[in-house]
C-alpha cells in the first residue's frame, strides 16, 4: 500500500501534459487537481500510453483533453459504463475516471453505484463543487438545501446526497476525500488511490469560483481548515485542530468530537483510524459534517475484494482451460445434424 516512488523518476510532469490549452476559468479549482494528478503520475513507473482518462460532461469532464494519455470525453453521466467496457477488455490499461457532482450523482448516479459495487479496477475522481458549472450555475445533488441558484431562485428543496455515504452504501472498497487547495495532501491521497486494486473513489472538494465561490471555504481556507477537517491516517489516532488538541471518540452508537484535556479526555481515548474498518464504521466517519463535526479527509476505508475486470477474465481463462479454445467449426455444427446428399 505504499506509493511507488522510484529512486529516479522515469517520467516528468511534462510527459503527462497534452498540447491543448486548458480552458477552465482562471482561478478554477480544477487547475490544482490537474496539476496534482500529473504529479502523481510523474512519480510512478507507468508510461503515458498505458493510461486512459475517461470523463462525462461538465467543466471537470474536460480533464482528459489536458492529459497526454489516451482519453475519452464521453456523454453526460455515462463515463462509468464506458470505463467498465474498457477495463473488461483492457485490464492492462490504467484507467482514471473523472466526473462532477452533476455528472456523477445526478444523471450518472446509477452507473456510479454499479461501477462501485462491481469494483472495477480504476480510480474514480469526483470533482465536487456543489454546482453545475458548465451549464452556468444550477444547483446540484450535493448542493445544500435552500440553495438559491438560477434554477432555484426561492431556494433548492432536495436533501443533498453525500458522495462518500453513497459509495459506502454501494459497497466501495476504497473511499477517500481530498481538497483542491490542499495539494500535498491531495497528491498523497491520489497516490493511494492509484495503488488500490479495485474502484478507488476519491471525492475532491473543488472550488467553482464563478458560480459557487467559497462553497468549501471551511476546508480550503488555511486559517480555519485545521479546525474543520480531520486528516485520517491509518493506525493513528483521530486528532485534529490548529492546536492538535481535538479528536474523535466513540460514544455508544455515535461518534463525538472532544477536546483533549477537557473532561479528562486524553489522546489515548481517541479512536485510532483503521482503513480496513467495516463499512458501518466508514459510514459513520463519512457522516461527520461541518459545522457539527470535522470532516474527514484522506483515506477513509481501503479493503480488498476481487475486482470485476479480473473476474471476467478469469471466467474466460477458466472456460478455455476446461473446454479448450473455442472451435468455430464445432460451434457451427452443433450436436444435432443430418446430411442431405445432393
Amino acid at each position, binding site marked *: 500500500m505504499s506509493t511507488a516512488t522510484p529512486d529516479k523518476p522515469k517520467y516528468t510532469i511534462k510527459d503527462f501534459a*497534452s498540447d*491543448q490549452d486548458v480552458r477552465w476559468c482562471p482561478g478554477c479549482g480544477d487547475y490544482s487537481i490537474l496539476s496534482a494528478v500529473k504529479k502523481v503520475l510523474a512519480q510512478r513507473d507507468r*508510461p*503515458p*500510453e*498505458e493510461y*486512459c482518462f*475517461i470523463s462525462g*460532461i461538465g467543466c471537470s469532464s474536460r480533464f*482528459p*483533453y489536458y*492529459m*497526454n*494519455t*489516451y*482519453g*475519452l*470525453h*464521453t*456523454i453526460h453521466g*455515462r463515463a*462509468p*459504463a*464506458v*470505463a*467498465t*467496457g*474498457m*477495463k*473488461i*477488455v*483492457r485490464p*492492462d*490499461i490504467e484507467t482514471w475516471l473523472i466526473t462532477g457532482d452533476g455528472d456523477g450523482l445526478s444523471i450518472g448516479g*446509477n*452507473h456510479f453505484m*454499479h461501477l462501485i459495487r462491481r469494483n472495477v479496477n480504476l480510480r474514480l475522481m469526483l470533482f465536487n463543487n456543489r454546482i453545475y458549472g458548465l451549464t452556468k450555475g444550477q444547483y446540484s445533488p450535493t448542493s445544500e438545501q435552500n440553495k438559491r441558484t438560477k434554477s432555484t431562485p426561492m431556494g433548492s428543496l432536495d436533501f443533498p446526497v453525500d458522495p462518500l455515504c453513497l459509495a459506502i452504501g454501494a459497497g466501495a472498497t476504497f473511499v477517500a476525500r481530498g481538497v483542491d487547495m490542499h495539494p500535498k495532501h491531495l497528491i498523497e491521497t491520489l497516490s493511494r488511490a492509484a495503488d488500490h486494486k479495485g474502484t478507488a473513489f476519491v471525492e475532491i472538494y473543488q472550488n467553482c469560483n464563478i458560480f459557487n465561490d467559497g462553497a468549501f471555504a471551511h476546508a480550503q481556507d488555511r486559517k480555519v481548515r485545521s479546525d474543520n477537517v480531520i486528516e485520517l491516517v491509518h493506525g493513528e489516532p483521530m486528532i485534529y485542530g490548529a492546536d492538535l488538541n481535538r479528536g474523535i471518540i466513540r460514544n455508544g452508537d455515535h461518534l463525538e468530537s472532544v477536546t483533549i484535556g477537557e473532561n479528562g479526555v486524553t489522546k489515548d481515548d481517541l479512536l485510532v483510524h483503521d482503513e480496513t474498518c467495516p463499512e458501518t464504521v466508514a459510514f459513520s466517519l463519512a457522516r461527520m459534517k461541518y459545522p457539527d463535526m470535522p470532516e474527514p479527509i484522506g483515506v477513509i476505508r481501503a479493503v480488498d475484494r476481487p475486482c470485476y475486470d479480473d473476474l*471476467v*477474465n478469469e471466467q*474466460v481463462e*477458466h*472456460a*478455455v482451460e*476446461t473446454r*479448450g*479454445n*473455442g472451435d*468455430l*467449426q464445432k*460451434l*457451427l*455444427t*452443433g450436436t*444435432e*445434424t*443430418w*446430411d*442431405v*446428399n*445432393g
Partner: protein
Amino acid sequence: MSTEVTPRRKEELQEVTIRFAGDSGDGMQLTGTQFTNTAAVLGNDVSTLPDFPAEIRAPAGTTYGVSGFQIHFSSFDIHTPGDAVDALVVMNPAALKVNLEDLRENGILIINEDSFTEQNLKLAGYAENPLEDNSLTNYRVFRIPVTKATLEALEELGMKGKDAARSKNFYALGVVLWLYNRPLEPTLDFINKKFKNKPEAIKANERALRAGWYFGETAEFFTSTYDVPKAELPAGQYRKISGNEALAYGLIAAAVKSGKPLFYGSYPITPASDILHELAKHKNFGVKTFQAEDEIAAVCSCIGASFGGALSVTGTSGPGIALKAEAMGLGVMMELPFVVVNVQRGGPSTGLPTKTEQSDLNQVLYGRNGECPMPVIAAKSPSDCFHAAFEACKISMQHMVPVVLLTDAYLANGAEPWNIPDASLIPEIEIEHPTEWDGEFTPYRRDERGVRPWALPGTPGLQHRLGGLEKKNITGGVNYDPDNHELMIKLRQEKIDKIADEIPPATVTGNPEGGELLIVTWGGPFGTAFAATNRQRSKGRDVSHLHLRWLNPMPSNVEEILRRYKKVIVAEINMGQLINIIRSKFLIDAKPLNKMKGRPFTITEVEAAMERELGIPSEPISS
C-alpha cells in the same frame, strides 16, 4: 394395448403446417420444437413460428396465457412458417378460441377433450361448449382424452395427478408424430438427454409419447396418415438454427475471423435476451459478456471496449434502442466501431413484447440528435442472421463506424434448416491498428474510404483523446469553427455512402430485366415475398422481387432496378417506413403493403396485394 391394427391409407403431401397450442405451462414450445427437429432430421425443409404471451406463466385456462408453436415442413424449399394451418392441436378451450381462425377449412383439429370443463370454457370466454354446439363442423375434429389417457399410461409408474398430467404434451406429440409418419427416436433421444438426472421424468415422458403413438395406431380414429417426402435441399450437412442462435454464431465467427476478442454488453429484453444467453455459453472463444445495469450502460460499455480494441456489440429491442440513441451518436462522432443489434418487437412503447414487427427502421436511421448517419443492415431469415451479423461486424470495424443490425421477433425465435458452413472457408476480416505515425498522431486523418485509424491504448506515441464535441478535421481537437463543422458532417456522411462500394449489388428474383410489378422487401418478409413471387410467376404473372439487406447505404444499383418496373410495392410489417425513403430518394410512386398485427405476412396476403396491383381479380381466399 395390443389390439388388431387396421391398415390406413397413407397420403403423400408436399407441405404441411401444424400448430400446437395450449397453456403457457403445457409445454407447447417444446412439443413444437421436437416435431420440427424430427421433420428436419428426416430431410424436410422446415420453418417455424413460436408465439407466446408476455406473461411468464399466466393463470391456466385464460386466452392471454395461450402459447403456440407453428411448424411448416415440406418436400421443397420453403421460406415461411406457413399460411393457413393444416392441423391444429389444442390442449384447452382457450387455445381453441385463440387459434381456430387460422385453421383452414376441413383442416385437422385435434382436441384434448378432458380440458373442456365448465371452468375452462368460462375462462376462455365460451358461452357454449364448442364441442357440442356444432360450431366445428367445418373441420375434421378428433377429440382425444389426452389428460386421462396420459394419466392411465403413467398409472403403472405410480405417478398421479399433476405430476403425471405434465407429460400430456408428449402424448399429444406421439399422436401427431404417428399421424405424419415421423419416427419416435429423435424425441426419445431428446427425453433421455434432457432429463438425464430425472429418471422418473424419462420414464413418464417416454411412456406418454409411446401411448400417444399407439393411440393413433390402435384407435379406429384417423382414416389416413400423411407423409411429406424429403426436400431437395443442396447437398451438405444440415442443422436447425434459430435467428438468435445464428446471430450469436455470426458474432463469434466475426471475432474468430478478425482475431479480436468479442465483447457483448447488453441488458436483458425480450426478444433479444437469448443472444446474451447464447454468447455467455461460449467464453472459451474469448467472448466476454457483460450484463449491464441498463441499455445506456450496455452501449456505453461498447464504446469503451471498442476504444480498447475489442469487437464490441450490444443487443436489445426497440425500447432499448430508444435509450441507446444518445450514446450511438457519441459513437458516430468518435468514429469507433461497434454493432447495435435490434431484435424488433411490437411497438410503440412496451407494446407487444413477444410479437414481431418491423417498425424500428425509422428509429435506427433517424432517432438521434443532429446529422448522425449510421449504416443499417437487416437479416432476411433465421439463418441469414449469421451472415448479417458477420457482415455488420466486418463493415463496422473496417469502416470505423457503429452499425445497426436489425432482426425481429419472428426471425429471432423462428428456426429453419441450415447448411452448415465450412468454417475454414469463411474469409478473414482484416483489421489494422497503427503502431507508429509520421509526426504528431492525427486520429481524424482519413484514408481513401474516409476511414480514420483505430489506434489502441497502450501504443506508445499514439495517445489521443476522443469526445462528443465537434472535432477539427484531421487532428480531432475540439473545434467550433463553422466551416469545419459543415465539412465534418459531410465527411461522416461520405464515409457511410462509400460503404456502398463494398456491399454486393442488389439482385432481383423473377425478371431482372424489368416488367410489370416489383415487390420490395427488407428483413423478415423476404421469405414470404419470395414465395409469393414464385407462385405468381408460376401463374404466369410478371412479378419480380427485390430484397434489400443493406438499408443504409443502399446498394448502388437500387434506383436503376426500381425504374425498370411499371409498378412497385413495398411490403413491410409497419405502417410504411422503407417506402418513404424510396419515394423521397427516387421520386417513385411506390405503393405500400402494410400489416401491423404482430405476425408475419402470409403468402396469400402478399399474392393478393400483387394481384390487386396487377389489376387481377383475386381468387376468394379460402378460410
